[in-house]
């Protein structure tokens, strides 16, 4: 599903973020991405979502070589990748329903189909009763669940999350991880960046560790 081959990413203002990074993630796999802050976790995820392009090397996602993807195909690609952020990235002036519906609206789906799918996604994250609320009326954990519903509402084969539990207490974090597990069980490929090491080590999933932009360890030896 994801394949990095000798990927370098250099930012003009702060130097190398990723150096010679290679790894593969199979379809249906769930993996954690850990490492100290500034190790390049976010950069890696941004490359997958094509928010950035690598300086060198190849990133292949879902059979697509992202380096060769023309600009006008970028929206199409992003609809295939559900992205979750630490700060949720919700629209504060829109209802929960509208926030979750956004990827479907953008994809041009019909009204009925949108309503059906949004409610299904909200049901999955346990927020069906809050569809009319605005994000500010929700707790941090609930906001993150709205973000997750938005990421999966388009039924993407791949979901990436950047520190989804960064602002949550352990109980809520566990709840979020259980949610990810459920997506994993229905075949979604997940890559989750986190430094919630306590939780991660207790779960039986692959762990990729970055240090200074290099792959330091991979719990599954190749």
């Amino acid at each position, binding site marked *: 599903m994801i394949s990095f081959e000798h990927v370098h990413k250099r930012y003009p203002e702060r130097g190398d973020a990723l150096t010679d990074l290679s790894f593969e993630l199979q*379809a*249906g796999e769930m993996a954690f991405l850990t490492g100290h802050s500034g190790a390049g976790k976010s950069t890696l995820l941004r490359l997958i*979502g*094509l*928010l*950035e*392009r690598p300086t060198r090397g190849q990133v292949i996602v879902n059979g697509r070589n992202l380096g060769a993807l023309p*600009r*006008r195909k*970028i*929206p*199409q*690609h*992003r*609809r295939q990748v559900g*992205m979750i952020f630490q700060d949720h*990235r*919700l*629209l504060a002036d829109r209802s929960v329903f509208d926030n979750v519906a*956004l*990827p479907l609206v*953008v*994809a*041009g*789906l*019909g009204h009925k*189909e949108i309503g059906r799918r949004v409610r299904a996604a909200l049901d999955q994250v346990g927020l069906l009763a809050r569809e009319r609320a605005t994000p500010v009326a929700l707790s941090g954990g609930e906001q993150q669940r709205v973000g997750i519903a*938005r990421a999966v509402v*388009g*039924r993407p*084969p791949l979901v990436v999350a950047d520190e989804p539990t960064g602002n949550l207490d352990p109980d809520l974090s566990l709840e979020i991880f259980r949610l990810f597990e459920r997506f994993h069980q*229905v*075949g979604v490929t997940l890559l989750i960046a986190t430094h919630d090491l306590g939780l991660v080590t207790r779960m039986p999933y692959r762990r990729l560790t970055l240090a200074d932009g290099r792959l330091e360890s991979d719990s599954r030896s190749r």
Partner: protein
Amino acid sequence: MMMMMIKKQHARARQQHPRLLDLPGLWLNRHLQNAVATLGRLMRTPLPTGMTVAVIGISLALPAALFVATENLRTMAGGWEQAAAASLFLRQDIDDEEANRLAERLRANGAFAQVHLIDRDQALDEFRELGGFEDALSQLQHNPLPIVLALYPHPSESSPARLEALQTELIALPEADFVRMDTLWLQRFQAILDLAQRAVILLGGLLGLGVLLIVGNTIRLEILNRRSEIEIMELVGATAAFIRRPFLYTGAWYGFLGGMMAWFLVTIAVILLQQPVSRLATLYRSEFPLSGLGPLALLTILAGSITFSLIGSWIAVNRHLRGADAL
């Protein structure tokens, strides 16, 4: 896993099939939704929207008002076309018989389509009718007015140069006292009107450019205000066209509302001026209904206003939305 993928593909095929079938309907629907949604958004902030619309309206009202003024003057001048092109005033000592002979000679000349003789009594009656002079005229012992020959040159003889030549020929006649060339004056007036009309176009273009800048700047601010929203939409896979569309519609609405405002302002002005103009016309013993902006003029204003606004927002959108997904 395989089964699931196949199922997924099926589901995708199902959802895409009807979309292909009613694509034109969907496209129209999307535009309609955008149009309604952007208008709603503008209406929710009436004060800033109103101010922008007022600026556009006032800018466009200026050339529109000038247009109305020239059109009315043209209508007025059209009424004068019927007047004689030249009036040949004969010397006081010329009597009716001599005048008639001169008229015959001029008719035979061929330069004139019509030669009309106005004798002293007729002239006095006409003068009385013009109003205001009745008392003064009744004081006079004898009729002071000369015999006048009203001359209508052939259209082929009506160029300004030809008319001036005609003027020198007429003044050279022994019977002539003086010659007044009405057409020459009318033609100068027409030339001034043409100039004014050119000025309307120039002014319209210049203020249209102003509208372009106003709307462009308003849209630029709107884009900056909604930066985070735009970023989120890009994250979930919105195409550039999808993000641009509401801004372009907003620009078009500004143009439409501004154009309507311009029309409204000019119409109000015409209504307010109608009464003083009628009074003025009455003083000249005539009537003159002011004409406002007709449907064609309204359409022109709206088309121009919307076009300039769209260009302005197009430029803003292209300048400020490019940076977001420049990869």
